[in-house]
Structures are given as C-alpha cells and as structure tokens.
C-alpha cells in the first residue's frame, strides 16, 4: 500500500497523542490505536516502511511502529 498514504495517517494519529498522552506514553498510545483500527496489510506496510528507513515518520510515530514491528515478530515466533 502507498507508503505516503500510511505515513500521513500515522503522523496524524501521532499529532493527536502528542497532546493527549502522558509523558513518554505517546508511542504506546499511537501503536495501540493503529493495532485496533488498521488492517493487517496496512500494519505490515508501515512496518516494512520502517524497515526501509522509515523516512517521514515523526519520532513518536516511529517509536509506535517499532512497537508494532516487535509485536509482529513475537507473534510470528509464537
């Protein structure tokens, strides 16, 4: 799926949690939102984008995608 489309969506989610999340919590909150609302192929695509360097992702959003990537790896291993 088009990476720019997903980057924009992910950063918009990041912008909301920038204000809402408790200090240090934004990556986990953003990851939680993406987990609950994005379909598998969208999550896989944003993780692949991170693996390819993750350009364009805001720092907290990058942190969120890292959380999702770790969860996917753990799930694949189990």
């Amino acid at each position, binding site marked *: 799926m088009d990476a720019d489309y997903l980057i924009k969506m992910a950063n918009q989610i990041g*912008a909301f949690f920038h204000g809402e999340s*408790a200090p240090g919590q934004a990556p986990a909150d953003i990851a939680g939102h993406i987990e609950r609302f*994005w*379909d598998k192929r969208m999550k896989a695509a944003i993780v692949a984008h991170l693996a390819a360097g993750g350009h364009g992702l805001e720092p907290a959003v990058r942190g969120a995608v890292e959380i999702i990537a770790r969860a996917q790896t753990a799930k694949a291993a189990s």
Partner: protein
Amino acid sequence: MYAIDHHDLGTPATDGAPVTLDIDGQSVTVPAGTSLMRAAALAGGAIPKLCATDTLKAFGSCRLCLVEIEGRKDFPASCTTPVASGMKVRTQSETLSKLRRGVMELYVSDHPLECATCPAQGHCELESMAEAVGVKASPYGGTGPRHQGQPLDNSNPYFNFNPDLCIVCSRCVRACNEVQGTFALSIDSRGFASKIAASQDELFITSECVSCGACVESCPTAALSEKSLITVGKPTEAVSTTCAYCGVGCSFVAEVKDNAVVRMAPNRDGDANHGHACVKGRFAYGYATHADRITKPMVRANITDPWREVSWDEAIAYAAGEFKRIQAKYGRDSIGGITSSRCTNEETYLVQKLVRAAFGTNNVDTCARVCHSPTGYGLKATIGESAGTQAFTSVMDADVIVVIGANPTDGHPVFASQLKRRLRQGAKLVVIDPRAIDLVRTPHVRAEHHLALKPGTNVAVVNAIAHVVVTEGLAREDYVAERCDTDSYARWKAFVSQPANSPEALEAVTGVPAATVRAAARLYATAKNGAIYYGLGVTEHSQGTTTVMAIANLAMVTGNVGREGVGINPLRGQNNVQGSCDMGSFPHEFPGYRHVSDEATRQLFSSAWGVPLQGEPGLRIPNMFEAALDGSFKGLYVQGEDIAQSDPNTQHVSAALTSLECLVVQDLFLCETAKFAHVFLPGSSFLEKDGTFTNAERRISRVRQAIEPLAGLADWEVTCRLSNALGYPMNYAHPSEIMDEIARLTPTFTGVSYEALDRLGSIQWPCNADAPDGTPTMHIERFVRGVGRFYVTEYVPTDERVNSRFPLILTTGRILSQYNVGAQTRRTDNVAWHSEDRLEIHPDDAEARGINSGDWVGIASRAGDTVLRATVTERVQQGVVYTTFHFPESGANVITTDNSDWATNCPEYKVTAVQVTKVSQPSEWQTRYRQFSKETTRVARETPLSTAG
C-alpha cells in the same frame, strides 16, 4: 385532514393534576387544563367542531362547538373552555342544535355541499359536521354574497389550494406557525373579505412555504388538498412505517390503493415526529416507482460491455463464483462489503454477517465512515457509548441550545420545528457555523450568538469556550468530582487553561471575536440546562473525532449530561446511520460496538454463526480504495450505497473501482457506483419490505411493507441468496427472525423484538432486563463507561491550506428538498425547489472575479476541477464558498480531497482550498463524465438507460 380517519380529540393533551367533572351525566376525570371538547371526546362523545384539531392550540373562531354549563347563561366554545372540578356540562340540547345549525348554514352558504365530486369526499370535516348538525343544504340557496370562482393555486407540485373551498378557519395558518414554525401563511383582510395568503399573497411555490404539508394535514375541507388524492384516488389500506430519509426517523401511515401509495400521512402517535413531517418524507416518495428503477438482475464481464439482463439465480451464481475465484487467486482478504444507512438494521446486520462469516474477513464498512464515524469513536472514548444521549423531546427542557456544524432546518426539518418551538418559548440559541444558516435569523427566532468561524477551526473554538468555562470558575467541579475521571480532568483542565487556548489568543485562527466566544461560553455554562446538537460540520474534518471529544469535555465540565434538557446530540444524516453502526458495520466492531479482538465477543459470534472469525480489523472504505489501487483488494459487494458519488476525490475513487475484478451493486437505480459494476442486483425501497430503522435518538422503529417488491425480492432476501450460493447458509423466513438473532447477541438489544415494537410503538436502546421499555435518556446516574473521561484536544490545523493558487475555502452541505446524493429526491418533484447544485460566494469575492449570480464558474482544487453556477450571497463569509452535492454531474466530490479524520478516516469534506473563476464551458471532468455515463449504462441491444445516476 386524514384520508384514513384518525380520532381527533380536538385540542392538545395537557399534563395537569386530575380534575373530575360531569359531561352529559357521565363522570369524567382528565388532567387540569384539558378543554371541555377533549374531555368529551375522551369520554367517547363528539362535540361538532371545525376550527379545532388536536395538533393545534384552540382558537375558538367557528362557534360550532358551543356547550351549556350549569350555572352559566352563555354558550361557551368547548374548545377554548378548560375543565373545572365539579362542572356540569351538556353537549346536546335543542338550543345547542339550533345554534349549531345556524352556524353551519352560514358556512355552507359559501361552500356548497357538492361533495360527490370533491376529492375530500368521505373525510371532509365540513361535510361530516354538516351531517352531524343536520344541515344538508344552505337555506340561502346560494343567493347571498359568495367567494366562488377564485383562481386555484396549483403551483406546489404536491398540493393545491382552492380558495373557493376555504372556510377561513385558520387551521392552516396555525399549523404553519405552531407546528412547522415557518409563518408563511396569514389571513389577509377582514370580515367577509378575509382570505388565506401565502407570504405577500404569492403563489405557494414562490412564497416562504417549505412544503412541509402541515397546513394540508390540518385543513378540514379540500381547500388544501394533496394532488395524489385526485390522481391516484382514495386509499383503501393504511400501513404504519418509518421515513427512509433523514435521521429524525419520522413515523408515517402509508395510505395505499392498488399497490400504489396515495399519501404518506405523518403518524400522530409517532414518538419522533408527533404528527409532523417535511417535504421529503411526506411527499417525495415517487422515486420508489420511478421509471429509472431497475427491476431485473444484470451482469457483464467488463464495465465497457453492455449490461445483460439475467435471472436472479444466474446473477447470484455469477457473483458468488467471482468472489470465490478472486479469493482463491488473491487471498481471503481480497474482497469485502459495504452496508448502507439507507437499508434496514436487519439488512445491514446480514451484510456484515455475510462478510465476516461467509467471506471470512472483517472488510466491512458503511457510509457512516464518511459522516458520523468520529461520533462513534469520540463518544465511546469519553462517555462510553457511540450514540446521542437524549430523545428529541428533551429539547423542550433545554434553556440554552448550542448548534454546531449542523443546519437542522434543512437537514433535520422535523426536529428543527420542535427546536424552533422551544426557542419561541424563550430558550436561547448559540450557532457555531461558518455560514449564516436559517436558524441564525428566522421568523420569531434569533440566535443570541453566531460564532461564524473559519472552516476547519472547530477544535480551536470549542477549546476556547472550555477555556472560559474553566478559567472563569464556571466548571461544575461537584459534578466532575462525582462522575468523571479526576486524573484526565486535571490534565485537560491544565491544558485548556493555557493562555494559548484563550478566545483572545485563538481569535486570529478562528476568526471569531473573543468577546463573542466569551459571551457564548458564559451563556451555555450558566444555563440550568444546556444542550449541544451537532452535525457533519463537526465530524467531516481532519480533526472530526477531536471535536466530538472536545464537545463531550465541554458537556461534562458544565454538568450537562445525564438528564432531560441537556446532552450531546449528534444529528445523524441518513435515516439509519445509527442503526448501521449499531449493527456491526465497522471493520473493527461486531454488533453492539464490541471490538473484534475481544476474545469473549468473538467466541460468542463464532459459536452462534458456526464459523471461526478473524480478530484483526479489516479495511475501512478509503483503505479499500487504496488496497484496490495496490492490487490486494479485488472484489466488493455494495448494498444501497453510492460511493462513486458520495466519497471524496472522485477521480481517485473511480480509479480504485475500475481496478476491481468484481463489483456487485445492489441498488434501486443504476447509480454512479453501478457504472463500475459487473453484477447489478435490484434493490427494494422502504415501501417494499419489512424491517427496522434506528434514528438519531437511538429509537428503533418498524418499517412495514406497504407495496410488493418491484423486483420480486426484498434486499435481505438477496443477501441470504448470495450467502447460500457462497456455501454459508442463511435461512430466515422473515426479518423478525434476524432481529431475534441480533437481540440474542447484543446486550443493548436483548429486549427488542417485533412483538415489543408493535406493543410499544418504538424503542430507544438500550432495551434489556434493566430497561424493558428502552432508554430515552442515557448516562443518568453514571456514564456508561463508568467515569467520564476527558481528552486533551490540541488544535491541529488541517493540511488543506489556502495559498495564492487556491485562495478560497470550499465547504459543503445540503438543502431541505434534496437528500444526500439525490438518487431518490432528484427523481421526485422536489426538483421544483432545487434542480441543480450552486456555488455560494460572498459578494466581495465575486466582484474581485467579475462573477454575478447565475454565471458559470470553474472551481479548482488540488484534487480536480468542476463547473457550477454561482449564487452571490452574504450567507457565506468572505474567503469561503459553499455548495451542495445532490447532483452527480456537479462533481462536488471531484474537488474534495483525500484528507481525513486522524482516528476514523472520515473524509474532510468541509474544508477544501479552491480557486473560483468565471468560465463558459463544462470542466474536462464533466465532459468525460457524460461520455463515461453513456458508455457504462447500456444494456444489451445498446439501449442507454438513465444516465442521471
């Protein structure tokens, strides 16, 4: 005047303490304030009357209803005389008969009883009252001065006004004032010369009349009468059902003759509308039998091929075969479905069940994605339930009413009439809208404050209001301490208190003077009961969800949730938006808003449906388009939804739809989406099926079949057949069985059944053991989520910014006479009021571009361009242009962009940066559109079908 008669009690109900009196020797107990006329009617009697009806306040002009009261010498009018304890009343006597006959003889002297040839014959009150008082003809023999031979006003497409038949009872004037609140009619002149006049004695069509029909309904004669009573004839059957247009969900009695609707009479017992209606629900039902209806299934291998009419079996087998082939080739998640808010709960439930259980994916979504998905998310997060908190009648207890991003007089007209009634009683109004909507100033209504904000700055305005509440000590700390989460409150309070959120700091962003914001905030926060009503002007933004949360924060901090007269009230667009969301149409939720990842819920559905279910969310509509373009999504079943017209960035949507290998469209007409389809399954209108709709107040109402399905099958039957062909059995004998299944699986619906709906009339969910009759007001003692949760709502400007290339902001909306994409209303006489979409532009912006009203103008955005005609008006502020989106050839969505809400992907329809220029020809898109429409709507034999979409 009901064609199928209704027992009219003469004057409205009251709710005083019980009073006992004697009427004709019978002891009667009624509430104080009840008229003698109503008391007598309740006791089974009937006092003759002409100017009284139970939907209007008594007026006392005809003097037909005179009675005798022991101890009084005069003969008071029973409609205007209230009951008193111990009163002794006689409704029949020789003297009374004589007096009544005298009155009636005067009436009929100017209204000959030529009833046999009159369309109202059999249900004309003048005729029946003349008979009741024993008058057969005028003793004056038609010799005195008369009002005959006056011109007939047949300018309204749906009703006539024949002044010759008017008895000047003023019921129509009072109906227009009291029920509708438009004040279009008056009695012109005095005495014998008195006559009914629309506006300044104009034709109805050019007057201020909005064609709600309340006057027609109230007229006791055929002076105001539906044309259909003449063209179709008198009805022989009556079926109680629910309007299929807006989220008010008005209840109607469909009056039918020979499988054709004669009239839609608003149901006086209807809990949502109490006997009122608007021009759409009451009159615009003709689309159901329009010549454009497609009643035969059709298939084609490519969208460039002509359509081929086939049997139901062949069409269903073809669709199922294609879906299976696609899944085998591209994987299980390569197909999905879209449910419609124009379909019933039962149909919607079945489509999501088909997708989850028969397709085996969660790729199901609904048109609420593009309207109220932020409401679902925002209200669930803050207060715990994805629905409005009140019944419509709650507005009658509100003292301050805030309307944000909604235009009730056009979008939700029957609710607007009730709202205006409350405002006429003295409640105060705040309007937050970029445009001066009608409510800002309309007869006998004037908004206290109009916050004419710049489009896209809702969050900033609501934060600024909250800032005032919190920093001026207007917060209801006791309420918050008792009912809300204190940690989130503390963080939110610190946030909104920041100087950056003050009205002064945000004035440059919002364009609203700080003093106005402060005054509005104080008014709302200090009201005994403050109620917020909002619409798509809130949700259809990149921060739609954030605004819903900000509204919830504001309602909680002022203690305005959990009782009558207050609340957070989303005004839903289509009739069943609430229902389609309740029924599990979202890709992440099962019915009842339970996340697909929740093990227990998944188990419940999995064992009821007998198949394993996925625990990961599926694709939302815009994601489906992206996936279609990247080649991972290839098949789609769309029931009753026109995504090609209603979704933003038309050219992007067209590209996505073109890339599908199998698109199945189930619809009444060859709509825009059907032009991209491979299988067309004929749909059935609301008149042709059984089911339920759920309106904006969570009210579940029955839809009952009034005429036979034109294509032979109701929509739910088609979904069952498709499922069966896919190998997943669905065998329901009647929609009531589907509702029974919903009730078994959904805690908020446990008590809902067709039997309960027949018994109670309608039910507001939750309806279960705790609330067997339903729940008009929610969150009464505590919030559904336990404690109310505040969210920090930072204002984040949209990416859609104006610049020198695109210096204006386009925002979109709707108009009273048309409905959504217009597929239905464009196929009715409602085009008499609105036959094209126009671009509203401020005089200064128009002058700078040399544009006059009526000129063709090109509107270009980053997404595309189209051409419309301009209307120059001060309704829009400088820098803002506005249009509706009811006609596909207007291409309003060719201009709107892919921007969407951060939480839900609800498109940002309300903010698009554009340039407007004067032009002389249609846009390139419009030229291509016409050609494409022609090519994709051919059926074999190369006959073009309708291209009107």
